[in-house]
């Protein structure tokens, strides 16, 4: 016996949880299926950057939409998600990098986007006093910030459930099939049926898409992060580098998160990653050079979350090009956390209204598949 619901969302990351929540707000009764627990993978263990800065142009409208939700996140979730907004700063380490920044900001301005702002050495030093003297400037996105990813994903899940979503954790969605105009999904001994299926399964979403006849160029990656012991407060904004792989954030408790995209080896079937300490050593060297204040800090823990990375580095977002009622929301390629709140809202609009005011057309799966609908 199938239980009929309005939508089946596969994947309890921030995207699946946000979509489930927004479907509830639109009056639907979704089921959310997560094989581990909400936020177990990339959504719960990423750097927590809430960043419009340095995004690919096709996803900027979604990012801007999301930023508006982040700024009122407590109203939505009854949880502040530890969101704080001290801006994000992209540091140019030399004049060549600054020239690239200048061109980028000009390009965005020409497209009508104003969130990125070129800054000189003086403003850079004002925002990030601890940065090395040699850096000539950079770019700031002043409304950006950071949040606690596990807290945020958990809060989305909790609120979705409060608003009527059925949540199934610890059992994988299996035997996904369409019949009689409905999608059917087995979850342990239960079967759910709905006219709508959302594929938000992160690193596991590529397999689902492929099984439904829409293979895409996606790989599983595991970006590494490490966190230090508490050090005296010295920096407010999140800092990323133009030229080298580094992101850097000090939390209010004094601990410092160091990331930037060096990769661990994922063992997806085992939910495991094996860290590459020689790459983490490169991040450590970069911090050592740029922030002398950090040299005596100790590294307390390092980890990596498993996620999907598209060949073109932008997500797959929107309706299927083959099946009615199927929607994809995956492949956020190491920068999906900030997009979560907005992507859930837009996805709910696509499902409920059949369209959205937010420009997401460049993100569709049809960029890999000519439409057959």
């Amino acid at each position, binding site marked *: 016996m199938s239980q009929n619901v309005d939508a089946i969302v596969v994947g309890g990351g921030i995207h699946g949880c946000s979509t489930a929540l927004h479907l509830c707000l639109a009056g639907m009764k979704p089921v959310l299926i997560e094989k581990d*627990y909400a*936020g*177990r993978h990339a959504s*719960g263990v990423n750097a927590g950057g809430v960043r419009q800065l340095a995004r690919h142009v096709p996803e900027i409208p979604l990012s801007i939409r999301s930023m508006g939700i982040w700024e009122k996140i407590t109203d939505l979730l009854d949880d502040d998600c530890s969101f704080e907004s001290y801006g994000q700063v992209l540091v140019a380490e030399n004049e060549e990098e600054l020239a690239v920044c200048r061109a980028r900001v000009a390009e965005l301005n020409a497209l009508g986007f104003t969130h990125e702002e070129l800054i000189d050495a003086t403003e850079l030093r004002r925002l990030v006093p601890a940065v090395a003297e040699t850096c000539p400037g950079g770019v700031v996105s002043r409304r950006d910030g950071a949040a*606690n990813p*596990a*807290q945020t*994903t*958990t809060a989305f*899940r*909790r609120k979705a459930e409060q608003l009527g979503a059925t949540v199934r*954790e610890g059992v994988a969605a299996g035997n996904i099939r369409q019949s009689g105009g409905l999608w059917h999904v087995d979850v342990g001994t239960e079967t759910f049926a709905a006219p709508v299926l959302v594929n938000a399964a992160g690193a596991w979403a590529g397999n689902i898409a492929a099984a439904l006849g829409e293979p895409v160029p996606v790989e599983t990656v595991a970006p590494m992060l490490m*966190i*230090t*012991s508490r050090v005296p407060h010295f920096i407010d904004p999140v800092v990323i580098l133009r030229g080298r*792989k580094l992101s850097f954030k000090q939390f209010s*408790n004094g601990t410092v998160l160091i990331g930037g*995209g*060096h*990769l661990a080896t994922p063992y997806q079937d*085992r939910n*495991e990653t*094996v*860290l*590459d*300490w*020689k*790459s*983490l*050593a*490169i991040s*450590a*060297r970069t*911090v*050592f050079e740029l922030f002398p204040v*950090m*040299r*005596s*800090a*100790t*590294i*307390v*823990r*390092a*980890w990596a979350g498993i996620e999907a990375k598209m060949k073109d580095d932008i997500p797959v977002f929107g309706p299927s090009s083959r099946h009615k009622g199927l929607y994809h929301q995956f492949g956020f390629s190491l920068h999906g956390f900030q997009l979560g709140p907005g992507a859930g809202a837009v996805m709910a609009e696509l499902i409920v209204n059949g369209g959205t005011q937010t420009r997401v057309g460049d993100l569709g799966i049809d960029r890999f598949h000519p439409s057959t609908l």
Partner: protein
Amino acid sequence: MTVAPKREAYDVVVIGAGPAGLAAAATSAEAGLSTLLLDENIGPGGQVFRAISSTPVTDRNQLGADYWVGADLVQSLRASRAEIIHRATVWSLDRNLEIAVSIGGASAFLKAQRVILATGALERPFPIPGWTLPGVMTAGAAQTMLKSSALVPDGRTVIAGQGPLLWLLAAQILRLGGRIDRILDTTERGNYFAALPHAFAFLTSPYFTKGLSMMREVKAKVQVVSGVTELSASGDGQLANVSYVAGGKRETIPADLLLLHQGVVPNVNLAMAAGIEHRWDDLQLCWSPVLDASGNSSVAGIAIAGDGAGIGGANAAVVRGRIAARAAVEALAPAVATKLAPMATLRADLAKAERGRVFLDTLFRPAPQFRIPTGDTIVCRCEEVTAKDVLDAVAIGATGPNQLKAYRRTGMGPCQGRLCGLTVTELMAQARGKTAQEIGYYRLRAPVKPITLAELAAVPKSEADVKAVVRG
């Protein structure tokens, strides 16, 4: 003096130079395998034989004959060709048998064909009200000071808890002229009956007579209160009083030092960070690795010996070390293995060494109120999280220790859960009506001991390393 490892790859790397590690490294090296023994302390011995080659205590009776057994183990290791490095902190081990080790402030990466983990035991957390006050310490910490520096307490001292180590420590303190005002025995009365069916094995084990004479020696000199059912420490920024209930009667006594101990549990951090499967042990109330009869873990190539494999005591640890090493020799140099003591003999030795263990485990199984705190009692010292905080998080949706991190940062401080992990598991299991096995444990991550950013930044980079990174 700082010595870096002589090679980048070894047949066998043994981690920890307690009884199991000393025996394993000696066996492996005697069989001709290239063997490296890495140990965190300044000399061999681990906890039980701490400072065995340097202790200022020279009267052998004061530390007891069992302690000096360690000297023979060290001697046979030194006679072998094993390479030994002390003050070496292994901070990462993964399923590819790659090891990161910090020696004298510099880190090196090593590769092994087999790894034998002999990381021993930790004292079980004893989360009573006031346990984080200065003046309250673990019995193990007190014993470390006693063995390495012959330091004994001279202020008003109370020892509370249960287990063989508690009585051993008390005897050692007294023999060295230290002061103990009172011993508060928290052994549950019901445990004596539960342990009774296992008493015969215990009576015929070497523990029995030794244990009995030690308890008699201590009781002759110190007031011992048994059947303690409640315990707390208090004071304004420093321990001032110890309060307890025994036989339904509350008493409060002034104290300068409170030594707490309720047994030891496997030190699982490195093994868990390497991805080795563990199961909850319902008798010993702790996580133990899943191992085969030779100590092999769920990760190919990694074996575990000694108390890290499940608490068995020093004698069993020595045998388990030999068994794990013999299995490594069988795998890497089968021809040589035939010259070693046969596995059947070793397993018989182990059975003998483990005799009486179930009795001890049953008798000294700590009572729930000393494992599962309530109210404002601190659970996680690093992040100052109380029992009530944990229960509040459970009430709004935290289902296990890893989910709890999202609410309370428990286990995310520098101790990596060593001081709170078991408490959090049992507290959440009780609150949710689940078993500890169902609730699970923190996912542990390297570095299992913190390293400085400067040390990681100084890791030498080779051409190959630089190329390896470009693919990211």
